[in-house]
């Protein structure tokens, strides 16, 4: 039972990472890219950590893995915010559909 659930979680996590990377490469401006990275990668990381944690033998090991998630969430949210604020200070205008490059 644990094996297939873990596999599904890992695959879902991998898919979110793929989607986030696709967004990083294809989205038009820095704000959109941050959005794609922060949202998709955080969800991907959560799925992968959960998938790995349920395979662990001991509860302590599983909790250690799961502890990575809130730390990464806090770091990624703050860093995304710092980058976006810096971009705003530098005068980078958010992209609008139809507004051209």
């Amino acid at each position, binding site marked *: 039972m644990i094996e297939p659930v873990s596999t599904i979680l890992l695959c879902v996590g991998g898919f979110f990472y793929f989607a986030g990377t696709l967004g990083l490469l294809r989205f038009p401006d820095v704000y959109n890219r941050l959005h794609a990275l922060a949202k998709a990668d955080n969800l991907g990381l959560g799925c992968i950590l959960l998938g790995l944690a349920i395979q662990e033998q001991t509860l302590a090991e599983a909790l250690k893995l799961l502890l990575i998630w809130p*730390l990464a969430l*806090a*770091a990624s949210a*703050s860093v995304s*915010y*710092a980058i976006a604020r810096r971009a705003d200070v530098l005068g980078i205008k958010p992209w609008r559909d139809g507004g051209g490059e």
Partner: protein
Amino acid sequence: MSLEMAFDLFLAASLLWSGWRALSAPDLDCALTLFITFGLLMVLAWARLTAPDIALAEAAIGAGLTGALLLDAYGVLRAGKVGGQAGKFTRLTVVLAAVSLVLILIPALADLAPPALDMRPLVEANLQDSGVTHPVTAVLLNYRGYDTLLEVGVLLLALVALLAARGTESGMVSVPRPSPDPLLAMLGRVAVPVMVVVAVYLLWAGAFRPGGAFQAAAVLAAAAVLLHLTGLRPGWRQPGAGLRWGLAGGFFLFLGVGVILLLVEGELLRFPPDYAGLLILLVESGLTLSLGLILAGLFLFLSHDNRGA
């Protein structure tokens, strides 16, 4: 080809690629980001080589602290418009020198004689007398504690040189910092206590698994840098008496233990097996605090609040 082999090859290719891109990047901004990426890939490489001690140190010092220092230096360069592109002749000379060095090093590497002495059995055989059960810590603090003592001295000297070269900065006016950004300050408040706990854990874990004073110190230093960057604490100006003792204390503690052992045991840093564990923990605790302050000082003494963000 196995999956692991494929991953290793991919990792090696990524290392070469990011290294090359860091060197050939059009602007410093891009080059620095790629250099930090290179450091993180290097961490993976060390982890794949089952050298978690080096991976930890590389992550904290190589990618983290060095990256922050380089970015900080780049900020100063950009603000002051110092330096500039090197001339064609200079660049050609540097490239020629680097290529010749590589050409000399490759045959030298292929020609390496097998080590005359395999130290691993000796390390393993004497592990129970070393006071710790992790061979890397045993080597660093006990078997060749002399080397580590000198390494700490070198780091301390580097910071003293930095303080001397920086000058007294009498012209620098202390400007009150802008109030910290609430979101970043929040990150600092959440992350720093966790980092302190991680540092203590690494220090304690060093006795029986990867970890130890250097890694713990790097995490402490990173916490101090984070406190500064999130706007919670100002940069350091002149070291007061307390900070001076903190910076030098680890080295003097190590030296003091060495001298006492010289008087009692008749040899510098020969730990008596009964007290080795306790003495190593004492030395490592001192080193963690001092090295953390030294590594943080490399960043914080150079950071000027009045430079403008």
